[in-house]
């Protein structure tokens, strides 16, 4: 791929091509940035993003591959060295790209950008693009490289060997906490989307019997026929969306499938428990197949829809809420935009995937660039599309959907009045009309991002296929697909959390490690479920909508994990004696430390009760001392519970801060050691034949 191999003619062609891409990207970004007052076509945003991705891939990722890491096509990968035909298999790079992309792209890149749209589309776009190019894709790339050079070992293991036992244990606790918060916030998104929505609840509920049917088919009727079972599942799924309309329009049935948030929370908690202890072929695996294929299909059709419809962006480039007073999430651009928008820019979670199955299937080291860096660029593009979907809505509708009832009231009149006063003109009729179009009673305060994205997607997709009459169908299709893959993450994640708990407790009490014994199995599952269930329930009853509190916590946790992963990367580069290039990973690591520590401190100590947990707690305890009740508390007991929750959240934030700062210390210590050492001290799996060849040459 190196330029020196190209003939002069091709070199000139290449220069012309890349100059053109740069020029196009600059024009697109300029158009986006200078738009004031008039709406801009979404294609400018898409074009700007694609140009940035191509340039970054062609130049920056090549620099990392050749200079910083020194990828070596001659060196044997674990897929060859340990080939077992099962886990370790040299795999075609395009096939592996698909595998890796499906593992890293979930609901995250679809939700964060929707929330970030409250500041206008520009701040989110700029962070998504710079974040992915210099941080997110670099992290995925380098972690995949490090793991591939070490037999495909996991992140926790890698930290243990390169940074020491204690650091490994700290990282393990960190990963587990992140899992718990992640599962809680994802479950909360589902609850918000399905509460009082018989159509939505019915279709999501229908996936349970459909999955069981698929499972039985794939195990007993036609074993292993994945595509047959998925096709059956898909047809039934579409049927259930159509049937859902009848359910919603029949009052007796609608009542049967309408649930309040609290009830849904308990149902989800029960579901998470049952799904993760049942045999996997019965429910978990078939749902996983359905949701994976649906996810890829939906992402592809959203891309197609945007290219066909070429919608206008209704959201302003920069809204007044950059000042931090926005209703969707509290806090100013720095640090909270960088916390809210994790997936798509940088997501620490990917470090777990990049040190999972993918490194065991890399056939040639040089492919790590395409798979690690390339797949993350693709996820960032998914996030850009989500930002487009949120920005094609009328801003008035967007804010009505994403503001808590405590802010905009419970009626279309009060909502329209409040939001119009913010400067986003909207009428009550427009809000009821928006709900009617998608076949729902109301769209007010459907926070969490998923419903907003669904309305945006419905608008785009119905513009491509079916017209206005299909809007309600597309809306529920989008809700179903998001709920489906969120629930798949919730049940699979509960299982992962269960194994982590067994592993962690097992370090001190070995009997707990037996994953096949029922008692530890059930105990660990119960622990995992009650962990995320507790935060889920607090989120559901939170007057500010829950997402307001939980999403920043999740963002901090996710970015903190990224900081940990990038610290590992930096240490490894120092150990390889390639510290000249360590800035590639050290710079994004430093940025993440600054963001997470600032955000963590602000979440605890900020004097504004909307942001700081302690300020919120003291407001409520002061009121309670005077015997006053503050909404939404209706009793003195509820008042003290709110205060208690604030202290729990404070503790959690403090734990995050302690984790991330101790990793910083471990990292700096390891870097110091590596600098003092005179030779390479990294602990790669050696490839002796390869070393011999190099020594001879």
């Amino acid at each position, binding site marked *: 791929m190196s330029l020196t191999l190209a003939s002069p003619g091709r070199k000139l062609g290449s220069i012309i091509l890349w100059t053109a891409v740069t020029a196009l990207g600059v024009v697109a970004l300029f158009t986006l940035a200078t738009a004031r007052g008039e709406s801009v076509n979404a294609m400018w945003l898409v074009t700007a993003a694609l140009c940035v991705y191509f340039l970054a891939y062609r130049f920056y990722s090549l620099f990392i591959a050749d200079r910083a890491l020194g990828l070596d096509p001659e060196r044997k990968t674990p897929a060859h060295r340990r080939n077992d*035909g099962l886990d370790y298999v040299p795999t075609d790079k395009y096939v592996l790209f698909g595998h890796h992309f499906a593992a890293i792209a979930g609901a995250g890149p679809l939700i964060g950008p929707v929330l970030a749209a409250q500041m206008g589309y520009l701040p989110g776009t700029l962070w998504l693009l710079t974040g992915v190019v210099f941080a997110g894709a670099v992290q995925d790339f380098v972690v995949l490289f490090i793991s591939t050079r070490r037999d495909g070992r996991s992140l926790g293991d890698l930290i243990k060997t390169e940074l020491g036992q204690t650091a490994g244990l700290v990282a393990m606790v960190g990963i587990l906490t992140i899992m718990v918060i992640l599962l809680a916030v994802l479950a909360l998104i589902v609850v918000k989307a399905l509460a009082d929505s018989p159509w939505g609840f019915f279709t999501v509920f229908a996936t349970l019997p459909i999955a069981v049917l698929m499972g039985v088919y794939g195990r007993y009727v036609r074993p292993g026929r994945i595509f047959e079972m998925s096709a059956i599942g898909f047809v039934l799924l579409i049927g259930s969306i159509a049937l859902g309309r009848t359910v919603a329009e029949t009052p007796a049935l609608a009542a049967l499938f309408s649930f309040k948030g609290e009830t849904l929370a308990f149902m989800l908690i029960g579901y998470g428990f049952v799904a993760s202890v049942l045999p996997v072929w019965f429910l978990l*695996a078939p749902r996983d197949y359905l949701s994976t*294929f649906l996810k890829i299909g939906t992402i592809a059709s959203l891309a197609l829809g945007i290219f066909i419809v070429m919608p206008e962006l209704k959201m302003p480039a920069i809204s007044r809420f950059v000042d931090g007073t926005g209703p969707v999430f509290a806090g100013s651009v720095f640090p909270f935009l960088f916390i809210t928008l994790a997936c798509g820019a940088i997501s620490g979670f990917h470090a777990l995937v990049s040190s999972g*199955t993918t490194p065991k299937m890399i056939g040639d080291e040089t492919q790590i660039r395409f798979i690690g860096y390339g797949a993350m660029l693709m996820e960032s593009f998914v996030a850009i599309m989500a930002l487009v979907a949120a920005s094609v809505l009328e801003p008035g509708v967007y804010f009505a959907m994403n503001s808590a009832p405590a802010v905009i009231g419970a009626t279309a009149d009060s909502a329209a009045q409040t939001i119009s006063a913010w400067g986003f003109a909207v009428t009550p009729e427009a809000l009821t009309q928006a709900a009617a179009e998608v076949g729902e009673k109301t769209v007010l305060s459907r926070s969490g991002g998923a419903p907003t994205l669904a309305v945006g997607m419905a608008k785009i997709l119905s513009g491509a296929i079916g017209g206005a009459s299909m809007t309600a169908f597309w809306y529920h299709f989008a809700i179903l697909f998001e709920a489906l893959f969120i629930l798949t993450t919730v049940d699979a994640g509960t299982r992962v959390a269960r194994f982590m708990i067994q592993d962690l407790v097992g370090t001190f009490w070995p009997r707990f490690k037996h994953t096949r014994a029922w008692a530890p199995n059930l105990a660990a599952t119960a622990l995992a479920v009650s962990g995320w269930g507790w935060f889920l329930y607090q989120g559901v009853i939170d007057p500010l909508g829950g997402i307001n509190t939980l999403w920043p916590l999740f963002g901090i946790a996710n970015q903190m994990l990224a900081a940990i992963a990038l610290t590992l990367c930096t240490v490894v580069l120092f150990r390889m004696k390639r510290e000249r290039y360590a800035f590639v990973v050290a710079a994004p690591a430093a940025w993440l430390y600054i963001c997470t520590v600032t955000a963590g401190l602000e979440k605890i100590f900020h004097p504004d009760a909307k942001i700081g947990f302690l300020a919120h707690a003291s407001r409520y305890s002061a009121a309670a001392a005077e015997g006053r009740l503050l909404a939404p508390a209706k009793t003195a007991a509820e008042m003290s519970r709110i205060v208690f929750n604030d202290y729990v959240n404070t503790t959690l934030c403090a734990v995050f801060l302690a984790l991330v700062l101790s990793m910083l210390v471990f990292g700096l210590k390891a870097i110091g050691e590596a600098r003092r050492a005179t030779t390479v001290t990294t602990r790669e799996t050696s490839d002796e034949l390869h070393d011999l060849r190099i020594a001879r040459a």
Partner: protein
Amino acid sequence: MSCTICGLPALDLAKLGSKLRAGARLMIGQGDYDAYVAHRGADHPDEPLMTREAFFLERQASRFGEGGRRAMRCC
């Protein structure tokens, strides 16, 4: 085979189809059965071979099994 005008390789639909299939299967943790058979045949010819169905069930169980981390996915 490549195109005589543009020099790009001609689109091989059969190959593309099989890659798409393999990609879709690997997304859900189902590896390539033929690669497994080829590997076992080359390296362990005397050991028993799993049938296609057994291979499917083994891969399914291992994706969510011990550690469960093979099914790890992002948010």
